[in-house]
């Protein structure tokens, strides 16, 4: 059994260099349209990583990751409209989601709900938010100067500016660089958590909650902690998404939003942190390519892929390819290969 999520320093370094390199090189080589597309892919990769923390590392089956994503987006939108400056709203988007997750998680984990029930409760939460956000079209629903606008969504939301300089809005290229750097930061955060001693307790709780509990760890608290971190990251992703989009509507809470995050994770490999990033980029690129003048419905491809992966490649692309290469290496490589784990 290969140890998953363990800090492979070489791999982490390579991934980090790759992301950083993309952030530096791509703005010079690619057109604006492609860059804008890559920006939203990177935002979604951060979202995928957030579920990777909650579900992949922590084993908390969260069907409602979109709840925190959407709420993060709305928090940012409301705050930035009121403040006219983006530094505090970004912090709020993260903090509010951490707080919401703390309350919801307290309710779930201290009540010792089973995995499946946690899934249902988080699903219900996102659906409640979806319904609620849809029914706020009355002008009465406003927070400060920001009207929520129900199903029409909130248009023309200010983007991110350089901290404490409200006049200095980021250009699309700068937004791209910021998003890539954020992706790198979140990736390193994931790695740091997984490599820390607390991260090992989290992994132990996922693998065998009873044993972890018998060893003296408070598993409810551990799950709560990882749930809060994952949700806060999802809130951050939501804020970056609104920055990219300039618009937020109740669709961010939708079932399909939560679903596609899981699909990215499954396809990329839920046992790794690189897998969800790869899955998010690859599948979104695929879907947007299919969307352009094609006979084939994107849902057919996504759904088909998900079924095929769950049945045939349950561990996802990256772990399968890596193990395949390793076993090839062991078979054909020169002499003894180093055990990697």
């Amino acid at each position, binding site marked *: 059994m290969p140890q998953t999520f363990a800090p492979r320093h070489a791999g982490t370094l390579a991934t980090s260099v790759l992301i950083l390199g993309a952030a530096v090189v791509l703005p010079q080589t690619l057109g604006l349209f492609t860059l804008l597309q890559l920006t939203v892919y990177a935002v979604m990769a951060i979202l995928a990583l957030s579920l990777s923390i909650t579900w992949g590392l922590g084993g908390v*089956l969260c069907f409602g990751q979109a709840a925190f994503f959407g709420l993060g987006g709305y928090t940012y939108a409301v705050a930035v409209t009121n403040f006219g400056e983006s530094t505090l709203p970004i912090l709020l988007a993260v903090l509010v989601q951490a707080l919401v997750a703390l309350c919801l998680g307290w*309710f*779930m984990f201290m*009540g*010792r*709900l*089973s*995995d*499946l*029930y946690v*899934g*249902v*409760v988080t*699903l*219900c*939460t996102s*659906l*409640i938010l979806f*319904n*609620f956000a*849809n*029914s706020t079209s009355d002008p009465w629903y406003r927070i400060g100067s920001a009207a929520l606008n129900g199903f029409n969504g909130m248009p023309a939301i200010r983007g991110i500016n350089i901290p404490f300089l409200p006049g200095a809005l980021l250009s699309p290229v700068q937004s791209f660089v910021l998003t890539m750097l954020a992706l790198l930061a979140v990736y390193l955060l994931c790695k740091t958590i997984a490599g820390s001693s607390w991260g090992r307790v989290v992994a132990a709780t996922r693998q065998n909650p009873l044993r972890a509990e018998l060893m003296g760890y408070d598993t409810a608290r551990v799950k709560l902690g990882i749930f809060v971190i994952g949700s806060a990251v999802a809130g951050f992703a939501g804020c970056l998404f609104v920055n990219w989009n300039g618009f937020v509507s109740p669709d961010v809470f939708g*079932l399909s939003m939560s*679903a596609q995050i*899981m*699909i990215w994770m*499954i396809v990329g490999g839920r046992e790794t942190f690189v897998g969800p990033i790869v899955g998010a980029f690859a599948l979104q690129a695929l879907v947007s390519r299919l969307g352009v003048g094609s*006979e*084939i*419905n*994107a*849902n*057919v*491809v*996504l*759904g*088909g*892929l*998900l*079924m095929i992966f*769950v*049945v045939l490649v*349950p561990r996802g692309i990256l772990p399968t390819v890596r193990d395949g290469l390793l076993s090839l290496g062991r078979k054909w490589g020169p002499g003894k290969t180093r055990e990697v784990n």
Partner: protein
Amino acid sequence: MDLVLILTLQGVVAIATILLFSIGLAIIFGMMRVINLAHGEFMMIGAYGAVKSHEAGLNLWVAMLVVAPLVAALFGLVVERVLIRHLYGRLIDTLLATWGLSLFTVGVVTMIFGNTTSGVPTPLGTLRIGDYGLGQYNLVIVGVTLLVLALVALVLKRTSAGVLARATMQNPEMIAALGYNPRRIYAATFAIGSGLAGLAGGLLAPLTGVIPAMGVAFVAKAFITVISGGAAVILGTGTAAAIYGVISQSVTYVSTSVIGEASLFLAAIILLRLLPNGFAGRFFKGGV
């Protein structure tokens, strides 16, 4: 007085509707421990079966009550053979795979029939109670739901096939040792659950309109009802449906239907917290 009567009737209709679109899922989840997130798409297939066969000239009632369940059951049989049988015992994986199936089916149906609403006219007229009216068709739904429940209970409790199915869910090895083929029983159970979903889709088609994505509106509610019901297919799901139906209907009456729906989900969250094993785990141990 009229108002009380009509509100009660509406409550009953709401409960029956929830039960009708949950019962197929309850059988598949309660008996096979397979979470079928494509449940809404089985309904959609049934609804399309009813609409298209009605358009081809078939009697509406035959289309809804016979064609819809048959089409969905056939589809379920294929799905079980191709997809679900690889996943028994992997609860979370069944959920993910059927999520994929749901997207896939919606996509394929959209490609075939287009993303337009097809509909069948609502049969029967309006029942007048004083100043208020209620579609008589709603009462048909209540009737059919009761009939389906009675039939399912009867089959599970009294027939040897039902006992065999329940035994297989408890201990497939023992059933295999006794000379039955558990795979065949699984396939049949899944097909019956799918057929019931199709029946629900066919019956609800005149009320909701038929589009490829119509399943989304039901799957979350059905899923929540069944999970809060727990392992008892009829008693648990019935209780859950009753509670959610009453809550969402009364909140809808005092506010809007969107808030009513949200209140259903909120009630589910609180109920699950209070009864972490569902109603069945608390009140109906060993019941059907």
